[in-house]
């Protein structure tokens, strides 16, 4: 078998080929460090310091991938503790900045530190071994790996040790949708280190690609002619290498543009920048998906002892991945005001990329047809390959759902997206990565796995936790729950699925501990693994056998294989399958076209309004909507849109600071959803619900650390003269919009402010119902609710209780008017009563009111600036904005 390169395989350098002086210095330095560390058994065993450089760097990459995977897992754990904590007890331990940055860093660490790095480690190892190459260009690879890991540290941004402050992590989302985070463009400004980190990441990937191509070209010049055709899995290695520059190139363009805007004030076109970014963002997922695909084409033929079903169709699949992957980014921007034709073309291409996946999974499955059970061993490599196969189908089939534009109106930015995404990342990509890890770890370390049972426990917990997580995300998505926000509707089913989600994360994390434990025990206690005299396939089967949890073993030896079924018959079956899929895709595409064009054209340009339309101009600020209306309702509002039941509403929306989404999740009627990107207006023409009431309209697109409070209300008034009772609204559950505030009688209302600056954990606050005449309701904002996450007090010191001290020093009175305002359809808001906001007092608001809708609370956004110890600035970032959360609607019936 070709070795991964033991010490004896270390490439010799002839005396007349002395390396350049810099390389020699680096080599000498590395050797000095390696020799010292190798004296410590722990380092020597774990990092394989006695082995050649290629083995060492591969092992280092695997360990770093596991490290980032663990940290990224705890990021998700940390976020979910806050979600569950707020949902169950109303308490938050972390600041908004920390909570949202944990989501950002979860994505960054998992995608790049874990998955991308793991893929690079295995693909480099496989290429060198399978093509029997002598690894070269050591420092090119070292630099790529160093930059990759450094990039993740840079993306984190600065941490202040004295006084301690870790709140400048990026709260941007890993997608960093421009202009969010860009100085001069957004009220949330991320540290420039964030963008520098992405530059490093792009450069690292280009370096690695160069390293891979150098080896492949060296092989091509010398051995390709006599080697015959490449193994299928090597085709997919090449697909990866080709796609990386196509993928990471747009990232560099998008990042340089953002940096130019950040420091030099370059003009920015946020929509164009997002299109460029998503050429990277989407293709990245397919790059990582090539890890299990390559694993299938490598491992299953080895375990089955027979070649892939059809080489030609595998080649077609590889080619289609290359051609289609870079073209799908716009399907993340379906609901933006892009031209309708571009959206339709992207939907067609998104359907088309089903084909290479369909070919792959058919070919992979058919590779196993005819393999007797007596020749197949159910070791953990096979089990993870099985899980990855099922996970790919499960997650893959929800791709066309999201790719269907009219359906995406209901799915976009909901937790359903995360169900699809995590089905692919956990059950497909990660499971495929583990199949490869279990197969190649013994070959890499020279030791058999310590325990098949530990490996089995790892498999079971990954399966159980992964399924639980995906089902919980799916159910929450069905309800219309938005991703990323930690302030969720206080419904029992939402809380229950959040707890299921949290439990599933814990199960997954515990499962990975068994993998790490098994790895440690392997390098310290396991017997040596020898591939002496074995073919490559036999060595892989021997390694896989050491993960077998049962006593049943299948001999690892190769079996002579002679083709009995001619190629033409196998390819005929492939053609029938591919033909069926093509026909289905065309039919679905044609069926979806009218609604797709209608949706897209309606966002990009105004529709013809019917008579009686309410014209609404909305400007999305961070973190509220400024609304101006004319038609049957006239006036200006903050976070409130007013319309009559069944009235057509035409919205003309613009945004500044961040992309935002108008999201009216009417699950029992027609959802309304469109994105508003700074610099490009969006439009919508919809009919207001037929049932009068208060409908919540959350911002569906993450726009910074006060995202959760960014919820508006659509107040639907009854027709003049009609009854304005909320009974019909309650009986219809508000058309299925789970963000609707709960309805409580004003007389019995007990409104209590919480740590997020909301009444009763709801934004808008509970809708108060009352009969015309004398109306009163009680409310309080306890001093205990005032803290760093409460925007009502603009003191962001890290010193304990500084916010509360501020309140006390001002005699428990804050300079915001709390009161009641009437919504007058003819003129807008009309003052009824108000007084400065009192803290820590039981207050009663009383007024004599006629029938109609009113706003109560603090109905204007509050200017907020996060700046503890004056740390906010050019190198750290800053966080300001206008937050409105302590308000609601008072509904007075006749």
């Amino acid at each position, binding site marked *: 078998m070709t070795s991964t390169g033991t010490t004896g395989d270390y490439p010799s350098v002839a005396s007349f080929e002395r390396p350049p002086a810099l390389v020699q210095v680096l080599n000498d330095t590395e050797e000095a460090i390696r020799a010292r560390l190798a004296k410590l058994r722990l380092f020597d065993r774990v990092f394989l310091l006695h082995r050649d450089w290629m083995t060492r760097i591969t092992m280092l990459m695997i360990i770093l991938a596991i490290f980032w995977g663990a940290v990224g897992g705890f990021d998700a754990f940390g976020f979910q503790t806050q979600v569950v904590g707020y949902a169950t007890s109303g308490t938050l331990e972390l600041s908004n900045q920390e909570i949202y940055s944990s989501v950002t860093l979860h994505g960054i660490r998992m995608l790049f530190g874990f998955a991308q790095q793991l893929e690079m480690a295995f693909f480099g190892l496989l290429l060198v071994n399978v093509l029997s190459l002598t690894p070269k260009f050591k420092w090119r690879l070292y630099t790529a790996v160093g930059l990759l890991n450094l990039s993740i540290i840079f993306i984190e941004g600065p941490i202040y040790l004295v006084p301690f402050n870790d709140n400048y992590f990026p709260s941007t989302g890993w997608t960093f949708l421009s202009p969010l985070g860009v100085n001069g463009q957004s009220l949330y400004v991320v540290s420039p280190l964030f963008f520098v980190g992405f530059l490093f990441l792009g450069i690292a990937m280009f370096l690695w690609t160069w390293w891979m191509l150098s080896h492949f070209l060296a092989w091509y010049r010398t051995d390709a002619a006599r080697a015959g055709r490449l193994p299928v899995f090597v085709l997919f290695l090449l697909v990866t290498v080709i796609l990386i520059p196509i993928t990471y190139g747009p990232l560099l363009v998008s990042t340089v543009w953002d940096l130019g805007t950040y420091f030099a004030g370059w003009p920015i076109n946020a929509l164009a920048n997002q299109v460029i970014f998503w050429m990277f963002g989407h293709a990245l997922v397919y790059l990582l998906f090539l890890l299990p695909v390559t694993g299938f084409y490598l491992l299953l033929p080895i375990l*089955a002892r027979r070649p892939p079903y059809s080489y030609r169709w595998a080649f077609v699949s590889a080619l289609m991945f290359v051609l289609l992957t870079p073209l799908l980014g716009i399907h993340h921007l379906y609901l933006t005001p892009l031209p309708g034709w571009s959206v339709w073309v992207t939907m067609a291409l998104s359907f088309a990329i089903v084909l290479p996946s369909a070919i792959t999974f058919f070919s992979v499955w058919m590779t196993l047809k*005819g*393999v*007797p059970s007596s020749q197949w061993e159910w070791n953990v490599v096979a089990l993870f390959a099985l899980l990855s196969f099922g996970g790919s189908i499960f997650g893959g*089939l929800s791709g066309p759902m999201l790719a269907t534009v009219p*359906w995406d109106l*209901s799915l976009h930015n909901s937790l359903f997206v995360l*169900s699809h995404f995590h089905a692919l990342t956990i059950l497909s990509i990660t499971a495929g990565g583990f199949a490869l890890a279990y197969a190649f770890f013994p070959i890499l370390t020279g030791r058999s796995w310590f325990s098949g049972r530990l490996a089995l426990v790892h498999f079971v917990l990954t399966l159980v936790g992964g399924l639980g997580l995906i089902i919980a995300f799916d159910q929450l998505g069905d309800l219309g729950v938005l991703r990323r926000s930690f302030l969720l509707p206080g419904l029992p089913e939402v809380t229950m699925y959040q707890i299921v989600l949290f439990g599933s994360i814990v199960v997954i994390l515990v499962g990975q501990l068994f993998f790490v434990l098994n790895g440690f025990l392997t390098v310290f206690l396991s017997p040596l693994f020898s591939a002496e005299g074995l073919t490559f396939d036999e060595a892989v089967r021997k390694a896989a056998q050491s993960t077998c949890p049962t006593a049943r073993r299948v001999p690892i030896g190769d079996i002579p294989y002679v083709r009995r079924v001619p190629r033409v018959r196998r390819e005929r079956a492939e053609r029938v399958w591919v033909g069926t899929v093509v026909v289905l895709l065309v039919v679905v595409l044609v069926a979806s076209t009218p609604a797709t064009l209608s949706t897209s054209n309606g966002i990009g340009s105004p529709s013809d309004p019917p008579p009686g339309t309410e014209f609404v101009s909305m400007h999305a600020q961070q973190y509220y909507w400024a609304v101006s209306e004319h038609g049957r309702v006239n006036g200006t509002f903050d976070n409130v849109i007013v319309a009559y039941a069944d009235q057509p509403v035409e919205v003309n929306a613009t945004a500044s600071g961040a992309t935002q989404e108008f999201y009216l999740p009417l699950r029992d009627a027609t959802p309304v959803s469109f994105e508003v990107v700074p610099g490009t207006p969006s439009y919508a023409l919809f009919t207001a619900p037929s049932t009068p009431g208060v409908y919540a309209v959350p911002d569906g697109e993450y726009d910074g650390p006060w995202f959760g409070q960014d919820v508006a209300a659509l107040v639907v008034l009854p027709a003049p003269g009609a009854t304005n009772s909320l009974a019909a609204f309650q009986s219809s559950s508000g058309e*299925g919009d789970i963000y609707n505030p709960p309805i409580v009688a004003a007389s019995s209302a007990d409104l209590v402010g919480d740590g997020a600056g909301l009444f009763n954990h709801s934004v808008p606050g509970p809708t108060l119902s009352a009969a015309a005449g004398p109306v009163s309701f009680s409310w309080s904002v306890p001093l205990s609710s005032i803290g760093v996450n409460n925007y009502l007090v603009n003191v962001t010191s890290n010193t304990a209780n500084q916010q509360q001290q501020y309140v006390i020093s001002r005699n428990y009175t804050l300079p915001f008017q709390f009161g009641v305002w009437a919504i007058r359809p003819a003129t807008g808001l009309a003052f009824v009563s108000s007084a400065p906001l009192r803290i820590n007092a039981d207050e009663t608001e009383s007024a004599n009111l006629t029938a109609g809708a009113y706003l109560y609370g603090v109905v204007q956004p509050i200017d907020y600036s996060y700046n503890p110890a004056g740390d906010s600035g050019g190198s750290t970032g800053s966080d300001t904005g206008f937050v409105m959360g302590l308000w609601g609607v008072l509904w007075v019936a006749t």
Partner: protein
Amino acid sequence: MKPEATTPSSSGWRTPFVVFGIVGVVAAAGAIWEALYYATSPALSSASLGTTLGIVIAVVAFVAVALWAPPND
């Protein structure tokens, strides 16, 4: 189309082909279950029904063609 004869070596429910097939079908059923929430909702079905039906037919075809196809012998 006439079904292909399966070889004796591929018979039995514990062969990898059968096990992978069962897992694939269960996984596909899971995805269809996810889709059914929307396809059966009176308000949301028109947007989702076409794609859902396409997925269901594709899964049936996937299994049917695989059973009909010759083994990898």
